[in-house]
């Protein structure tokens, strides 16, 4: 976990991020038909025995999608939960293929931006035994 563990969440800042990108992101989230066809285009999905949690759509819907659903009214626990999805389970390689043309990486990227703005990002210190990012 990042250094800012106890810092209160700045919900207004999260809302600003969400509002600024609303036009694009709300449409992308709305037009994802939950078909799961993007799955095979993700090497992490293929490399984890086709675990649905690694599907590009799963990651976008459960991170940014939930942030919009909750209108940014989230706590640190919530951001810590989506941290894994947007940082560890996606490397933003932009290889995900959506038949409709939904730009999934941009959603994950916004999820990262929001998490980072609240001090929620991975700690790559190898001596930290609490979490592994490999």
């Amino acid at each position: 976990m990042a250094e800012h563990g106890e810092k209160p969440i700045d919900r207004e800042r999260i809302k600003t991020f969400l509002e600024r990108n609303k036009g694009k992101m709300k449409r992308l989230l709305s037009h994802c038909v939950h078909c799961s066809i993007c799955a095979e285009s993700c090497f992490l999905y293929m490399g984890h025995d086709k675990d649905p949690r690694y599907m590009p759509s799963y990651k976008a819907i459960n991170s940014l999608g939930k942030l919009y659903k909750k209108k940014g009214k989230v706590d640190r626990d919530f951001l810590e939960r989506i941290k894994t999805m947007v940082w560890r389970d996606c490397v933003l390689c932009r290889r995900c293929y959506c038949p409709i043309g939904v730009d999934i990486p941009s959603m994950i990227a916004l999820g990262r931006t929001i998490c980072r703005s609240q001090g929620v990002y991975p700690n790559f210190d190898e001596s930290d035994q609490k979490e592994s990012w490999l």
Partner: protein
Amino acid sequence: MFDFIRGPLLWVAFIVFFGGLVFQLLQFFTLTRKKERLFLSVHGKTKGRWSIESMRQWFESLLTTIIGTHPMMTILTLIFHCCLFVTPIFLLAHNILLDESWGISIWSFSESTTDILTVVLLVCGALFLLRRIFVRRVRAITTAFDYLILFITVAPFLSGYMAYHQWFHYKAILFAHILAGEVMLIVAPFTKLGHMLFFFLYRFLIGSEYSFGQGTRSW
């Protein structure tokens, strides 16, 4: 009540549908005013647009899409979407109503053909439903709204089939059929069904590695 749903409510449905599509289109063009030149493309380019080499490359590039990875799903969705548009537009009963109301006469399929197309659509819809229930990865991202949207899409066809074959109470089924069609038209521009328009906008106009066209628009 029957006069209301086949009169004013039908107008409301058409106005909301076409107005909604225009609204979404205008919003899209406003939000994507920025232009950017993208040089990456999975579709290879060779000299001579119609040369055998360029067509071979184009065909190979198609295999990198869902045509290559999900051939069955590609066929299923293609058939489903074709039936979804073709059936109601070229349905004889609809065109007779159109002719009686506005004097516009368009070509129609025979009743037996549209009957078969409706059954094909319903079978595709049932397969989508089964996929949603039984395929683990689809189930993982499925919400109650996905089932509702599938039902809204299929309901006009199911009720239309039942009305044509005069199952149950004809007038009640016909009432349900018109209402189901109106509900579909009203919600289409503002829900997941909006991909009927945005599929083309995203895949052709937005600059992307996977773009089908020469899209340069950017959000």
